[in-house]
C-alpha cells in the first residue's frame, strides 16, 4: 500500500460477492460441523450400548458357569472384568465427546453471530464507500479510460484519487477521456455499457448494474424499513432472485411456471416462495428506473429491494425501465 490514495471501483464489485461467499462458507461449515458432532455422538451412544450388551452377555455366561458344580469359571470372570472396563472407557469417552461438543457449540454460536454481524457491517461499509466514489465520479468529469461511464472499471486501469473522499478538495483526477460523456448522452439506454436486456425478461425490463442507479433516498440499514415491511422476507426474496429466479430465467422458457412447480415440490409458500419473488420483481410492484441522458438511471420505486440486492452482492438489478418524458 503506497501513501497515495487510490480507489478502483472494481474493488467494490469484487468485495460484494466475496462477502456473500464468506456468509455461505460460514453457514455451510457451521452446519457441516454440527452434523459431524451429531454423528459422532450417535456413534458413541451406539458403542456404549454395544459394550453394555457385551457385559450383560459375559455376566450371563458367568452365571451359567457358576451354576455348574466344580466348574472353573475364572475365564468367564476375566471376561466380565474386561467387558466392565471397556464399558467404563466407552462411557468416559462419550462423556468427553459431550463436554467437548457442548463447549464447541457455545463457541460456534458466538462465532456465527459475530461473523454475521461483521458481514452485515462490511456490506454496509462497502455499499457506502461505493456510493461515495460513484457520486464523486458523477459530480466530476472523471471518466476512466476503459469505459464510457466511470463504472465497472477494470482492475488493470484504476482511477487514481488524490484524496480519500469524494468531498476532498484538490483531488488529483486521472481522467481518461473528457469527451466521453457526450458520447454516452447520445446512446439509447439499452446500449449503455453494463446494461443488458435478457432474452426471457418480460417486455420493458432490463438488468441494470447497481452503480448506474442514482438513488436520492438510499436505505442505510434495517432501521429504514417501514413497519409493514418484513426485512427478513425481503432478504429471502433478494437471495432467491439471485440464486434461483434469475438463473431459471436464463435457461427455462416459462420461468414463472417452472418456479411455481418448484415451489409446489418443495412446499414453499408466499411470501417466501420463488414465484412470489418472480411476481415481486417482474410484476406491478417491480423496481422502476428512469434513464438519464448521462447513462445513469434514477430510481423511481424499490429502494429497499435495491439495498437488499446490493447487500446480496447483485451484479445486476432487474427493473422496469420507464422514461419520464413519455
Amino acid at each position: 500500500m503506497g501513501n497515495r490514495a487510490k480507489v478502483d471501483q472494481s474493488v467494490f464489485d469484487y468485495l460484494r460477492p466475496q462477502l456473500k461467499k464468506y456468509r455461505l462458507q460460514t453457514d455451510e461449515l457451521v452446519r457441516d460441523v454440527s452434523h459431524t458432532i451429531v454423528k459422532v455422538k450417535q456413534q458413541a451412544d451406539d458403542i456404549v450400548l454395544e459394550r453394555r450388551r457385551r457385559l450383560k452377555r459375559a455376566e450371563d455366561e458367568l452365571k451359567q458357569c457358576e451354576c455348574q458344580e466344580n466348574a472353573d469359571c475364572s475365564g468367564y470372570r476375566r471376561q466380565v472384568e474386561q467387558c466392565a472396563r471397556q464399558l467404563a472407557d466407552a462411557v468416559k469417552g462419550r462423556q468427553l465427546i459431550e463436554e467437548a461438543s457442548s463447549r464447541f457449540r457455545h463457541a460456534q454460536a458466538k462465532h456465527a453471530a459475530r461473523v454475521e454481524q461483521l458481514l452485515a457491517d462490511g456490506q454496509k461499509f462497502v455499499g457506502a464507500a461505493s456510493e461515495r466514489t460513484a457520486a464523486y465520479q458523477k459530480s466530476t468529469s472523471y471518466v476512466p479510460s476503459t469505459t464510457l461511464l466511470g463504472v465497472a472499471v477494470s482492475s488493470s486501469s484504476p482511477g487514481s484519487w488524490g484524496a480519500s473522499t469524494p468531498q476532498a478538495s484538490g483531488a488529483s483526477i486521472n481522467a481518461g477521456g473528457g469527451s466521453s460523456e457526450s458520447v454516452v448522452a447520445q446512446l439509447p439506454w439499452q446500449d449503455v455499457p453494463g446494461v443488458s436486456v435478457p432474452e426471457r425478461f418480460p417486455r420493458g425490463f432490463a438488468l441494470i448494474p447497481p452503480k448506474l442507479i442514482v438513488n436520492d433516498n438510499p436505505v442505510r440499514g434495517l432501521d429504514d424499513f417501514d413497519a409493514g415491511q418484513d426485512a427478513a422476507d425481503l432478504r429471502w426474496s433478494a437471495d432467491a432472485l439471485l440464486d434461483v429466479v434469475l438463473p431459471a430465467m436464463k435457461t427455462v422458457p416459462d420461468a414463472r411456471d417452472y418456479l411455481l412447480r418448484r415451489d409446489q415440490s418443495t412446499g414453499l409458500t408466499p411470501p417466501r416462495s420463488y414465484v412470489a419473488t418472480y411476481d415481486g420483481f417482474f410484476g406491478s410492484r417491480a423496481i422502476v428506473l428512469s434513464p438519464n441522458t448521462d447513462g445513469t438511471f434514477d430510481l423511481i420505486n424499490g429502494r429497499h429491494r435495491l439495498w437488499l440486492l446490493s447487500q446480496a452482492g447483485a451484479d445486476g438489478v432487474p427493473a422496469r425501465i420507464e422514461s419520464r418524458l413519455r
Partner: protein
Amino acid sequence: MSLVSSHITTHDAQCSDRRHARRHASSLWSDTAERKFEQRFFDEMDEEDRLYSAALRELDTQFNRAAKLLGPI
C-alpha cells in the same frame, strides 16, 4: 484422526482464501475508508477465524481422546 479434521482443512482453506481476497482488495483500494475497512472487517474476521480455528482444533483433540477410549469413530 477424527471426522473434525476435514472441517479444519476446509476452514484453513477458507482462511487462506480470505487472506488472498484481502491482499487483492488492498491492491485496488487504498484510502482512509480502506484502512477502516481493514480494521473493522478483515482484522475482525481474522480474529474470528483464529478463535474458530482454535475451537475446532480443541474439538478435534477431545474427539481423538475419546476415540482412544471408544475405538474408531
